[in-house]
């Protein structure tokens, strides 16, 4: 049963195609890896999916959502259940870890300026709930975030900032979690641990799509892998299928 269905997605940047007729169906509960050389359109795919870029053509459907989600505004897409992290780490640096996570839960709470000024009980209840929920999400990563929760995000180590971004995305209760190079800058032990964390998240029902260039990480984590080159899907399949496919080898190593 598909959860996310991408149909012939195309995106041009000044005449160059960053994505060309990209199709992808993601099943509920899967972990899908996306690989490809630099500039092959992986991050562009995430950016289009979350509404940061406008696609030139193509449609994306999410189960239980009737319309094409590309027609939605950026801030609406997370409400539907698609949440992401960023390749070049973008936590809200001057906010504390807890506050970062609470921003992630923005779309799951209510309360405007009036209820804030008048201290209406609804908004307060939401806030209490959100704080508890953020603590729960932090506990996925053991004590690493919990012990730092009142520190500003820029104070965190590199790996912890990656974890913070994942946690922030999870607070929004996503159905699909998009991870953009989660292990960049992590050491092998940390990325091994991250595999377990992501698997745990996945077992709790979150479908994961992960962009990664560390092939050993992909091998441990993903059931299915999609390889991109020049914005086009060259193959999808299991790790060993993709790993040994001549087109993938060519994309990475070049032609003879």
């Amino acid at each position: 049963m598909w959860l996310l269905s991408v149909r012939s997605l195309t995106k041009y940047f000044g005449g160059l195609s960053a994505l060309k007729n990209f199709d992808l169906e993601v099943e509920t509960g899967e972990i899908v890896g996306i690989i490809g050389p630099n500039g092959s359109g992986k991050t562009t795919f995430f950016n289009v999916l979350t509404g940061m870029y406008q696609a030139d053509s193509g449609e994306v459907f999410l189960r239980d959502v009737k319309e094409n989600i590309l027609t939605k505004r950026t801030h609406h897409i997370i409400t539907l259940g698609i949440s992401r992290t960023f390749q070049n780490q973008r936590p809200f640096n001057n906010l504390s870890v807890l506050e970062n996570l609470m921003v992630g839960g923005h779309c799951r709470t209510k309360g405007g300026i009036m209820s804030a000024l008048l201290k209406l009980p609804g908004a307060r209840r939401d806030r209490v709930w959100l704080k508890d929920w953020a603590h729960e999400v932090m506990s996925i990563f053991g004590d690493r975030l919990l012990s730092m929760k009142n520190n500003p995000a820029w104070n965190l180590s590199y790996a912890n900032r990656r974890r913070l971004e994942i946690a922030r995305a999870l607070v929004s209760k996503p159905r699909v979690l998009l991870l953009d190079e989660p292990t960049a800058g992590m050491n092998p032990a940390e990325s091994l641990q991250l595999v377990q964390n992501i698997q745990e998240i996945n077992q709790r029902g979150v479908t994961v799509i992960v962009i990664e260039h560390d092939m050993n990480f992909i091998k441990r984590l993903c059931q299915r892998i999609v390889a991109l080159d020049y914005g086009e899907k060259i193959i999808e399949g299991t790790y060993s299928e993709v790993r040994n496919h001549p087109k993938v080898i060519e994309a990475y190593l070049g032609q003879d």
Partner: protein
Amino acid sequence: MLKMTHVTTHYGPIRALNDVTIEVAENEIVCLLGGNASGKSTTMKTILGIVKTTSGQVEFMGKRIDGLPTYTIVRRGISPVPEARRIFARLSVKENLEMGAFIHRRDPGYDIEAEMEEVFKLFPQLRERLQQDGITLSGGEQQMLAISRALMAKPRMIVMDEPSMGLSPKLVGEVFEIIQKVSKIGIPIFVVEQNLKKALSIADRGYILNKGQIVMEDSAKNLLQNENVIKTYLGEE
């Protein structure tokens, strides 16, 4: 000519290069290979002084160049062909070439017209496009312009960052042929590349970078046959 010894570089708290040692001798094509985010571009930026070293040193022609501003390093004789070409979009092709010759603008012995003729011998297409804006060129032509722009500076050495990036496979082949031609003029070239097979087919020696560290160093021929090279790119079987 160029010698990087035990260079470590940081972006803020993140270590991007770890104890990298690279050497380029005269009349050599040396390539630095590695997958995404392995630190290739950082190496290039470190040579050019855009990124400062935390430890280790970079020498060019026997003199230290680390810590110098980029334009001084370029004036010493290292000409860069930057990643994604970085053609000046609203300057004409001719003006782009003149910018390449900028460091010789007060040099009476430098004949810009003659120098351009030399470049046109390598890239005859550019002559027709002389008055066009840089941005109107195709990707392949832009790459040629970027290389000619570097040649205009009469460099002692050329450093290239991913010349094959964003080009179609056919053009990639052409670009590497050009690199070989340039090298025959007698200019050593240091190429940072992702396209392993193509780069090694023209290079004399190669280094393989993984997670900011040099993991292998050998002649191009040996590297091409080494199975472990593929593993650093594509992971275990």
